[in-house]
């Protein structure tokens, strides 16, 4: 990692980070009015004192009705349903209702937040699409209005393109199952269905390596069991994963802070963004399937140097108390009395502390944070979903240096603070936005799709919820047996 470059980055980054919450609440600077009012991504719903009457929709022209009916039939291309069905043209109130429902689905997701898991704590802003729609009808600007409904990010658009490609693959019959005894030509043909970037004359091992990287596997170049398993995932399941990830994109704020830390929980990687440009990244260890890391957004406000570990009660009860007090004492744990008369376990700061030497604090309801770890070996593994829900960092000291670079008293001194051995909290000169996200389908820069296994089973669950919601409220949605089987 280029530290000097990173420090330069933070010098420019931090002033902007200071305004991150404000940025998150500002409307797009685009000339065209936003398709719907942009609310803060995580802002709690403010109590409505007066409910204004719904904005009246001007009468639709024949051309507008025709355009809207055509537009409504494109729901499958946006991943709102597995398959569309032929429907008669709608008109009048039915057309307006279907249009507003579709606008809401594209803007904030098909699935109602009431149907979210608790750990899907990245909630979309509430929107009322009616006023912007009324304005678009009045000004005869329906295509512009519709074009602004979806997330304005390349991540969403590349998934939309990927969805079209995989639906094409599905409609052409999908792919054949490979085995360990499959012939090289069959393996090459299978790889080429998804990956067109192979060079002429390239060895099979190199082509397999590229596939393994697309699946987050160890790139051995061998057609091993895990590679075969990924290659044999049915195309319908890949389509379901793309749909689920497009839905998650719709939960994202429309104006992300330009500078932020993003973690992909499913891939166990962390990236620091300056603007929309990634300036550094590192491996991470995220929650095991039994201890899912929640999806959320927050702001890192401080770093604890040489942190003790106040063991959560659930971990103490499940994993530590059963070892016995003598063993715990021998391993350096301390048992302290609580005010309520109970006991809790504390692991003092030190080289063997489970939190390592640095802990990055941000407010959340799940008591998770980013932290260092003494267990470094896991970072060389390709299976890094192994924590209790926190995010362990491969390079915590450089990350901390990035965050304190704006403070001359702290810049370059993180290691010195660690070496002092004292536990101390360092407030950041500017809070840094952090997003814990769950991406299992994403495109490379050349458009080739990457997939991660669905370690928490959230894709299948979400695809099912999308499908159920679409069937319930969208007249253009057809039942999809392939998705329905994902329970």
């Amino acid at each position, binding site marked *: 990692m280029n530290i000097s470059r990173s420090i330069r980055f933070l010098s420019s980054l931090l002033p902007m980070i200071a305004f991150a919450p404000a940025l998150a609440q500002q409307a797009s600077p685009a000339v065209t009015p936003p398709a719907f009012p942009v609310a803060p991504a995580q802002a709690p719903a403010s109590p409505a004192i007066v409910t204004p009457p719904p904005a009246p929709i001007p009468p639709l022209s024949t051309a507008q009705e025709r355009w*809207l009916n*055509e537009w409504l039939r494109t729901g499958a291309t946006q991943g709102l349903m597995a398959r569309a069905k032929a429907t008669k043209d709608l008109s009048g109130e039915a057309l307006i209702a279907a249009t507003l429902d579709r606008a809401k689905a594209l803007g904030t997701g098909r699935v109602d937040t009431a149907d979210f898991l608790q750990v899907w704590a990245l909630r979309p802003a509430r929107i009322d699409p009616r006023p912007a729609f009324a304005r678009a009808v009045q000004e*005869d600007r329906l295509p*512009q209005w519709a*074009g602004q409904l979806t997330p304005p990010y390349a991540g969403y658009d590349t998934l939309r393109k990927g969805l079209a490609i995989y639906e094409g693959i599905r409609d052409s019959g999908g792919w054949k199952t490979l085995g360990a005894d499959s012939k090289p030509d069959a393996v090459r043909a299978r790889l080429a269905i998804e990956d067109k970037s192979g060079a002429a004359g390239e060895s099979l091992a190199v082509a397999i390596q590229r596939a393994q990287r697309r699946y987050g596997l160890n790139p051995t170049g061998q057609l091993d069991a895990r590679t075969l398993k990924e290659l044999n995932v049915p195309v319908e399941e890949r389509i379901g994963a793309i749909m689920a990830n497009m839905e998650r994109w719709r939960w*994202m704020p429309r104006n992300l802070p330009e500078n932020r830390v*993003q973690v992909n929980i499913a891939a166990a990687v962390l990236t620091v*963004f300056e603007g929309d440009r*990634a300036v550094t990244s590192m491996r991470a260890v995220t929650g095991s399937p039994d201890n899912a890391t929640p999806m959320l957004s927050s702001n890192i406000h401080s770093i604890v140097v040489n942190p003790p570990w106040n063991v959560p009660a659930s971990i103490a009860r499940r994993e530590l108390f059963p070892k016995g007090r003598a063993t715990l004492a021998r391993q350096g744990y301390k048992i302290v009395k609580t005010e309520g008369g109970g006991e809790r376990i504390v692991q003092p700061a030190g080289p063997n502390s489970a939190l390592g030497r640095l802990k990055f604090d941000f407010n959340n309801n799940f008591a998770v944070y980013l932290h260092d770890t003494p267990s470094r070996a896991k970072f060389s593994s390709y299976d890094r979903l192994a924590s209790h829900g926190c995010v362990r960092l491969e390079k915590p000291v450089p990350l901390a240096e990035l965050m304190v670079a704006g403070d001359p008293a702290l810049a370059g001194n993180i290691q010195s603070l660690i070496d002092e051995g004292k536990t101390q909290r360092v407030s950041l000169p500017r809070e840094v936005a952090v*997003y814990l996200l769950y991406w299992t389908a994403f495109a490379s820069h050349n458009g080739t799709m990457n997939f991660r296994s669905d370690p928490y089973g959230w894709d299948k669950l979400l695809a099912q919820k999308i499908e159920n919601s679409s069937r319930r409220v969208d007249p253009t949605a057809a039942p999809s047996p392939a998705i329905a089987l994902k329970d």
Partner: protein
Amino acid sequence: MRKLALAALTGALVLSACGKKEEEEQPRVANELVEPPVENVIIEEPDAPLPPPVENVVTPPPPAPPPTIDEQQQIDDDAAATGMTTRIDREGEASQSADEPSGTGQ
């Protein structure tokens, strides 16, 4: 008496010759008895572990050296994995009215 002795000698020679003939044929019979199992083994040869070399045969590719990924490439890959957040300009994508032919529905 002499005739009797001559006849006995002749008979003994005949018996002796038969006996010798029997002894000579014994190994040949034994060989024939052994041969069928040998033929059976030959019949089972298609299951032998070494198939003839064929073009496009099932052989695992040799271990490949790990791919060389420079730091910037790794950062870009990780950025794609954590969310490709490059902003898209929707203005250029939709600058028509409902009266114009549209690309929706395709």
